[in-house]
């Protein structure tokens, strides 16, 4: 039985697949969020240096990781859409951008509120902070460029260019703390050495990372379905859906 890899690259079949997956990811996101917040506030101890302010880490780090990860995924699908001229890939890239921009804003906002008590300033032109701010502008640039072009297919191509050019910013953000002498602290969690964090703090943070991942999948799939309906409204299968009144 040959697997038809391209079955779900058609908007119609992806639409129903995504519809089935959204509730699953939503429920997991809610459970992990509750668990992460519980561990973060009631299990993880007070930090000897930062007191309670460090608890911002449970949203700052997940948001920052998601902002970088979602941009790479967006650039990947935008690239695939550009290379293979596949509509659904470009739709998926457009669906990712708002969620990525939101996480970037949250990372900047929570970082700033963490920096004020700990560094004594809301903002500093530090390599890590500045490259993350550039990431926010890239997301906004991607979304506004696509909104400025009427024909969706041309908007996809233009968006793909800005997404692919902007990918270079992601390693810059990640390695900024090593390349430059930044105020922002270095990586306490990395793949090649043991994390330098208390286990319960690390556990709370990682649970929140997975919760934000599940949340992103659910929200992005939902937005993809809406984009599919918006763009495929001329097709028979969407008209069929609409007659049945199940445009959900």
């Amino acid at each position, binding site marked *: 039985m040959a697997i038809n890899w391209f079955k779900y690259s058609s908007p119609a079949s992806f639409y129903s697949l995504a519809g089935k997956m959204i509730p699953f990811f939503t429920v997991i996101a809610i459970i992990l969020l509750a668990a992460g917040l519980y561990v973060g506030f009631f299990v993880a*101890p007070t930090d000897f240096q930062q007191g*309670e302010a460090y608890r911002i880490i449970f949203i700052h780090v997940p948001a920052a990781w998601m902002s970088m990860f979602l941009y790479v995924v967006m650039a990947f699908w935008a690239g695939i859409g550009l290379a293979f001229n596949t509509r659904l890939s470009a739709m998926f890239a457009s669906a990712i951008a708002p969620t990525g921009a939101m996480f970037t804003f949250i990372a900047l906002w*929570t970082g700033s509120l963490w920096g004020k008590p700990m560094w004594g300033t809301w903002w500093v032109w530090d390599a890590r902070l500045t490259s993350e701010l550039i990431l926010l502008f890239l997301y906004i640039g991607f979304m506004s460029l696509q909104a400025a072009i009427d024909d969706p297919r041309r908007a996809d191509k233009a968006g793909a260019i800005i997404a692919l050019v902007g990918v270079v910013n992601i390693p810059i953000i990640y390695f900024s703390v090593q390349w430059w002498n930044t105020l922002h602290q270095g990586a306490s969690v990395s793949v090649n050495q043991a994390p330098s964090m208390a286990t319960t703090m690390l556990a709370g943070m990682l649970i929140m990372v997975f919760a934000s991942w599940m949340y992103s999948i659910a929200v992005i799939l939902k937005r993809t379905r809406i984009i599919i309906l918006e763009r495929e409204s001329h097709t028979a299968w969407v008209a069929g859906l609409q007659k049945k009144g199940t445009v959900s």
Partner: protein
Amino acid sequence: MNWSNISEFFSMGGYGLYVWGSYGVTLICIVGEILLIKNRHRTLEKQYGLTHDINKKETTHETTS
């Protein structure tokens, strides 16, 4: 259990403004994003509703059908 009472929890060791300022804005962003998607979905249905009615009106008044 880190907190002995509610007010201690909200004061967050004196950093309440920063911690709850972060969590509060994050909550607003998340809820906002979900509402935006629901709103985009509702305008889509309204659009369909319109095109559906237009189609229906056209067909009902056609003399040839």
